[in-house]
């Protein structure tokens, strides 16, 4: 058994991109300068912030008890919210992409609402749903559950704002590929569950990774909904963005140091999500 396929007569080489298509530089001349301006809009504030960092005390600032508490809380809640986004978002994307049901377009629009809603409004909405006097608050009081102003509320707020990223990413991946591979699996005798695990999930894996990273980033940066729905209790609901906002008045150096840390994390996340390996992905 040889590892590399022998070249059979008459079998063409693997398809290569059309060499006639212009690869680089074929854009209107006025376009790159505008792109540079846009880039500067993002870059300058980041540079400005790094010039304000008190490098001498950077370590002490980000390891102060309040900073560490905020960091630990942010990490915990963001991971939990990301896990929730995977658990809820995969079925949502599958249903939107593969199941026909009435009012589907309305459903898709609703899923995207948290994306365009000001997070503060999202927080208020969550409060009126799960708060003490909210729509479900009474029922949950009976069960002895009190969500508002707890760490659970932080996770809920983060999930609320991050979920659309997962659904959007997965659904577009699922729809662009179609269900043809699943059809093949079915004619090969694979049940729906087996097909989902062994065909659908592996094929949407890159989109799942990208969606997961985006969800984590959105959860980590969540501020408005968290503040409204969960408040700002140290160690319980005060995540890094809330800590930064608070310290901005009290101890600007600490705020800047934590901000820089968030920027660093964001860069790593974006790098991970959009990394293109040297060889093209097989998908």
């Amino acid at each position: 058994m040889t590892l590399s396929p022998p070249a059979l007569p008459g079998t063409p080489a693997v398809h290569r991109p059309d060499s006639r298509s212009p690869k680089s530089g074929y854009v209107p001349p006025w376009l790159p300068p505008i792109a540079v301006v846009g880039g500067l809009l993002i870059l300058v504030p980041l540079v400005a912030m790094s010039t304000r960092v008190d490098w001498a005390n950077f370590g002490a600032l980000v390891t102060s008890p309040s900073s560490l508490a905020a960091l630990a809380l942010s990490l915990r809640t963001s991971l939990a919210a990301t896990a929730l986004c995977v658990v809820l978002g995969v079925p949502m994307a599958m249903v939107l992409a593969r199941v026909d049901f009435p009012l589907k377009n309305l459903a898709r629009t609703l899923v995207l609402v948290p994306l365009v809603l000001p997070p503060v409004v999202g927080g208020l909405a969550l409060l009126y749903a799960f708060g003490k006097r909210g729509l479900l608050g009474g029922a949950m009081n009976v069960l002895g559950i009190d969500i508002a102003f707890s760490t659970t509320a932080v996770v809920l707020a983060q999930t609320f704002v991050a979920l659309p990223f997962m659904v959007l990413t997965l659904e577009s991946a699922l729809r662009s590929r179609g269900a043809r591979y699943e059809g093949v699996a079915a004619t090969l005798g694979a049940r729906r569950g087996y097909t989902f695990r062994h065909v659908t999930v592996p094929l949407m894996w890159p989109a799942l990774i990208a969606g997961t990273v985006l969800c984590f980033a959105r959860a980590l940066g969540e501020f408005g909904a968290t503040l409204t729905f969960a408040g700002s209790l140290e160690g319980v609901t005060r995540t890094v963005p809330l800590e930064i906002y608070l310290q901005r008045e009290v101890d600007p150096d600490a705020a800047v140091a934590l901000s820089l840390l968030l920027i660093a994390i964001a860069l790593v996340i974006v790098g991970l999500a959009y990394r293109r390996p040297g060889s093209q992905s097989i998908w």
Partner: protein
Amino acid sequence: MSTRDGPVTNPRRTTERSRATAGLTASAVIAARGLDAALNVEPGHTLALLGPNGSGKSSLLGVLAGLLRPDAGGARLGGVELFEVSPAAVRWPRPDQQPIGLLGQEPLLFPHLSALDNVAFCARATGTTRLNAREAAMTWLRAVDAESLAQSRPAALSGGQAQRVAIARALAAEPAVLLLDEPLAGLDIDAAVTVRAVLAKVLRDRTAVLATHDVVDASMLADDIAVMHEGRIVESGPTREVLARPQHPFTARMAGRGLIRGMRTATGIRLADGTKLVGISADDAPVGSDALLTVRPGAVRVAPTGSCAPPPNANMLTATVTAVETHAESLRIWAGGLIADLDLETARDQAPARGDAVTLHVDPAATVVYRATLRAE
């Protein structure tokens, strides 16, 4: 070695294997797609659904594969019901419960699995251990001469290689009926030759339905032909017979043969305009009955302009050119139901255009006259 000798059998498929040489009868109606067709495949035969793109072949195969639910229809395999959709009853099992295999124009190999694991997919999905599934898969790869590709990722395979692996994958499921939807259409000419040879081998004694627009594939791979036109089967029968003596003008067009309808005479046929043509009688239909005349393009000549003396004994008729197209190294013209090929030399001197009247000389020795069994449209 017969390719039908399946290697390790998985338990789910044993009953289906015993039905492996059962015949298939099916019908399907899908109003939205204009599909209304019924077919019958003899046990162990390959039936070609011959028709152009959009004639409903793929829809019909989709129904048979269980992927497309018809408005009405049913299918039986050797007397056992596969599905039934009628006002009285709807029994529509999921496709994974049907003993039907499907091979499409695109190989659609699972990109995350090696060629070997693609072929082993069915066995794995139905509970065979990885080791046994791979061992069996290797045997199927060997059957399509793709053993050396076992460890390759689909992205590294050429179109022909991938299609051979896809054939092995479809066979590994040991389907009682194999459906092939334009399996050669996506391949370049050289790869198509290789894959066609593999298919000819695996389709022997296998109940299969082959959808194709290519009369070459139909004639080389199929025992019987059903010609599809706008969602309906316009005629069907043994391949040789259908292609040599077409009944429907559309079949003649697909087969590349001239076809004229008329009335039987003692020596041949009389056309509506009174023209009499002489030909060889293929049956003993009575004089005066509806008859068809067919002749291959090679036996039809366009008379040079100006000359009117036909070669001795030749049939002669005048007709209007209805279409002109290039065909291999010649110009093919369609006139009065007949086809004539002009070599490029002649075409340069006298290129008839659509609407021109031409005089055609037809060789009586190559002209066949036979009974018309379909009503004129």
